């Protein structure tokens, strides 16, 4: 736009409106962050926006309690000293990593292989199977919960990592295959022809050529799948069950809401613990994430 007087005034107005919207959008997260570092009695008695009024300052005790599971003593409203047990989100944090890392890598490996097969190999039923993949893209995963839960009960897979990896693999595959197919099918044909002429086997072509060439698409997909698995609650509830030694962060946080619904100093710290990694991934890899979103706005 040319910089006439009228237009520049408009630009200031625009920026002002945007600032207001952005502040409204950020206040919820900001309030959470501030509350998570305020002492317990402060969080309970005054709003977080008055944090600077108080002389007690800030503390990391809330994080110590939710992460370390260390007990905390405090004096309650009626003057008694109360001990509150910690929540040990550290364990849940490790569980979340254990669930998430393979649940990202396994489906991507399998989907990349399948996408390569669909794009560059000839076999009977190729179109039929790929049509099925497209059809299943938007099917809600609720459809699979009961049948798969029964299979898991028979196989003894409920509450096991293997069970939930496979479940996330199954539910993530359609989109992963679809996105990677779109990418891998656009790799120039000559690259393959010369490799096949040299006598390379498809597995070698896949590992040495296709995978390295697909890194941008794989990165987008990995971020997508990572956020999806890390933030998932339903699949974890159904297939991991409620036992503490395998429960992931979202399960723990949801159960904290149930058991400590008013302990805002702990809930805010706990919520922030669950958000640290996805926010980190988001800010460092936003570019890839946006690309993945653009390519795959069809997930079921």
């Amino acid at each position: 736009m040319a910089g006439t007087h009228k237009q520049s005034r408009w630009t200031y107005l625009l920026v002002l409106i945007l600032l207001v919207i952005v502040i409204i959008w950020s206040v919820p997260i900001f309030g959470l962050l501030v509350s998570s570092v305020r002492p317990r009695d402060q969080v309970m008695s005054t709003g977080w926006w008055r944090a600077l009024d108080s002389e007690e300052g800030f503390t990391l005790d809330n994080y110590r309690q939710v992460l370390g599971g260390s007990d905390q003593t405090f004096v309650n409203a009626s003057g008694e000293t109360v001990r509150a047990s910690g929540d040990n989100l550290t364990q849940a944090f490790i569980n979340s990593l254990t669930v998430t890392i393979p649940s990202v890598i396994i489906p991507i490996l399998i989907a990349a292989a399948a996408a390569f097969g669909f794009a560059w190999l000839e076999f009977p039923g190729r179109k039929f199977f790929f049509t099925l993949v497209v059809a299943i893209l938007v099917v809600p995963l609720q459809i699979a919960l009961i049948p798969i839960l029964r299979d898991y009960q028979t196989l003894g897979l409920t509450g096991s990592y293997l069970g939930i990896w496979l479940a996330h693999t199954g539910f993530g595959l359609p989109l992963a295959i679809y996105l990677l197919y779109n990418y891998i099918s656009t790799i120039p044909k000559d690259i393959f022809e010369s490799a096949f002429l040299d006598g390379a086997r498809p597995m070698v072509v896949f590992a040495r050529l296709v995978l390295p060439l697909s890194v941008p698409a794989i990165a987008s997909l990995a971020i997508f799948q990572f956020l999806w698995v890390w933030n998932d609650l339903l699949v974890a509830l159904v297939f991991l069950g409620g036992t503490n030694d395998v429960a992931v962060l979202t399960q723990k946080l949801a159960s904290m809401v149930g058991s400590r619904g008013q302990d805002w100093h702990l809930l805010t710290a706990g919520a922030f613990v669950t958000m640290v990694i996805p926010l980190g991934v988001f800010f460092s890899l936003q570019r890839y994430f946006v690309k993945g979103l653009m390519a795959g706005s069809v997930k079921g």
Partner: protein
Amino acid sequence: MNTNITSAGPPAEGGNTFLVSLGRLAVSIFIPLAAFAVLWAGFIFLRDSNAPQTIIALVAIIWGVGGVALLFWVTDYVVNRMPVVVAKKIQPFVFVGPAIAILAWYLFIPTMRSLYLSFFGPQSTNFVGLRNYIYAFTDSRMLEAFRNNLLWIILGTGGAVGFGLIIALLADRAKGEKFFKSLIFMPMAISFVGAGVIWRFIYAYKPLGEAQIGILNAIVTLFGGEPQAWFTIRGLNNVFLIVILVWLQTGYAMVIISAALKGVPSAIIEAGRIDGASELRVIRSIIIPFIAGTLVTVSTTIIILSLKIFDIVFTMTNGNYGTEVIASMQYKQMFRFYDYGRGSAIAIVLVIAVIPVMWYNLRQFSKREGF
């Protein structure tokens, strides 16, 4: 990749092809067996070990990821031991086979199985005909869930796409576009459960007279209003929950719409402006028609998301005070009432609801060339 079997099998001697192929056979049986033994040992370790959590987690990750790579490598190895004609036929299935098998187990077949189970009672033993569907479409809580889901779809999608469009249009014309967009987009990274906690805190309620710690009630009391327990206000409480979805998804809508805006040819927009059209007119008559396809795609995605919404309701109200949705009802049928028949019927209802989108996707796909 190891195709040099002489290091493992006996060296080929002149004419002694029988021994060589016996050796080859032994090796090609031994390698898959060894691979499966390793995987099995890992499985047993993970199931029974009392090692510290971190070690188990590490082993689990290596075992899970390495296992898949190993399986691919071993099947490829075995296929390549086969006669060339057979190998050529089987080769593609080494690549697409695992995916098809997993999709079959986790999505294709379950659709049929859920359909079948939906005609049976809670324990799936007695045939009940359409009774579960009659329940799904007549029970008062189910009807409430349908009404609420409709609300989620209309307000959630409308809100997210509406705000997304407005913010994208504003940001497109302002300086510091990246900064603004990045902050609006940020909630996309947060889980529904995390967002639930964030918004519970905003809606937090203390009786009149006490200092309000929830910002919404603080604002209400600042203007002389009475603090409200927002989640117990029937009807309106759904809207308070839907706000969370809008907060989370606006960034998504904005990013996609914003990319589409960059694709609108500036020549057309300039032409409109030179003709004296107001900025609003330019947006309504030139830009919106141009990005209509994108708006439909974004809306569809958020509609499907709203249809399946579960986590927010589960953590915030657990369906109480008239906030039940279809997915939360399905979860309750499964895990509170152990009624697999009703649970399956509700899942089938969800699938029926997405059939139009599925049909549209398939039609788009069949138009594509190269397949």
